[in-house]
């Protein structure tokens, strides 16, 4: 298994090696040692590749991922797995702000907590957070699923479109146009599958579902005076 040691290899070289390996579609496995909180580790991978990062990463780890499976054995800084297209990103520790932002597909599995703005403007990604999430999470989220085993901070799902939010713990407050919704069989089925896939220790019926009340979709003429 090739090892890239970031104490000896610079970031661009590391990313170039990973990107080349991903594009060769050989399904290789790479290990990254000594990430030391570096920015933009394992970004832009476009193909099947297994990457294990032995430590914590800084801003924008695993950004724009497609097909690759990236496992960070530590914490991740702001913007982890931003704009992911497909594949899987697992964080053993906590993730900082805007984890999984704008993600279009794939799975982001955070075993610790995620801070503010988790899943902001998500567009099809599935995000599972085993701990808590911070304020303004899933702001303007359009599509995909955010599953939280712990608690959610203020203004969850503000200005939400069609993403589905599942929270097991408490929600400090719901954002504008976000409401609790009925949990139907299809939702329980989805939860059961994704909880098993992410090794999450929770039962589907412990969650509540939140979604868009769809009151912001069209301008309400009665509100004209407020502008």
């Amino acid at each position, binding site marked *: 298994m090739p090892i890239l040691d970031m104490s000896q290899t610079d970031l661009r070289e590391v990313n170039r090696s990973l990107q080349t390996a991903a594009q060769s579609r050989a399904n290789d496995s790479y290990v990254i040692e000594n990430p030391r*909180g570096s920015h933009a580790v394992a970004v832009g991978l476009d193909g099947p590749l297994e990457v294990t990062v032995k430590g914590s990463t800084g801003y924008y780890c695993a950004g724009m991922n497609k097909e690759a499976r990236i496992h960070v054995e530590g914490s991740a*800084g702001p913007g982890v797995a931003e704009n992911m297209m497909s594949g899987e990103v697992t964080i053993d520790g906590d993730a900082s702000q805007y984890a999984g932002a704008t993600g279009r597909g794939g799975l982001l599995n955070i075993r610790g*907590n995620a801070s503010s703005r988790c899943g902001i403007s998500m567009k099809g990604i599935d995000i599972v957070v085993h701990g808590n999430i911070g*304020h303004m999470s899933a702001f303007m989220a359009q599509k995909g699923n955010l599953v939280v085993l712990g608690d959610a901070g203020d203004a969850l799902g503000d200005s939400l479109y069609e993403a589905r939010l599942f929270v097991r713990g408490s929600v400090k407050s719901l954002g504008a146009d976000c409401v609790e919704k009925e949990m139907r069989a299809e939702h329980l089925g989805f939860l059961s599958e994704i909880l098993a896939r992410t090794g999450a220790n929770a039962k589907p019926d412990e969650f509540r579902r939140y979604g868009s009340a769809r009151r912001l979709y069209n301008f309400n003429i009665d509100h004209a005076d407020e502008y």
Partner: protein
Amino acid sequence: MCGIVGLFLKNDDLQPQLGAMLTGMLITMTDRGPDSAGIAIYDRPRGGVKITVQSERPEDDFDGLEGALEKTTVRDIDMRLADTHAVITVDPGDRAAALAALEARGLRIMGVGEAMEIYKETGLPRDVAARFHLRDMAGTHGIGHTRMATESAVTTLGAHPFSTADDQCLVHNGSLSNHNRMRRRLARKGVLTKTENDTEVGAAYISSRIAEGASLGDALEGTLKDLDGFFTFVTGTRTGFGVVRDPIACKPAVMAETRDYVAFGSEYRAFADLPGIGGAKVWEPEPATVYFWER
């Protein structure tokens, strides 16, 4: 952008290495703030009052300064030179006379206190650290800042930390939007600031609240209500340091704690060389929540 680092030692055996640990942390934050750097380092009080001063022309201004000051003070003073800075230790009874004499000579007072020394200059953090031999400094706790200026000019006085009361200092990542109004409000109460900088107003606000009887925790809590803008603040006091982030919390912050220390960094990178970081508890301080550690 700016970079903040902080280190509070729980294990006294590490005290001789405080400067070296903080310097390493500071230099990793260079690309968050390459225009200036500063550090406030705290050591156990040893009876005297330490006045850190800065001069643009240290070879002229510091020449003969010790003798001149001793004409105004009752007791002997001690003076240590470090590049553009000098740390002058006076008897507490001579404090007012010494400060007046230093100001009359046009020296810039960086900070005053029984425990605190402040060193700050423009330039790359690596170069600033080398000029002051920060690596060799010992102490109980310290905070550092790398600056990318937004609200005021790149000058020595615009660099952080800002000290507005004995043994108190503040570093800041962000920008305050109501600092002019707050500066006038503080001035009406007789609290004067020296620069046009927003962070100095934040420091003066915290100091004035503490002077009015608030605890450090209450003063930091007050920043959430009375200061508008973006901020991650780290404040140092004689006995410890505190952290508070504005409710939106878009300025990054991460903390690490082991049996030996509590560390603050704008990014995890700042912790990479700390001893035992692999086993540390690492977490992100919550928005609008005050944290502090004291000895």
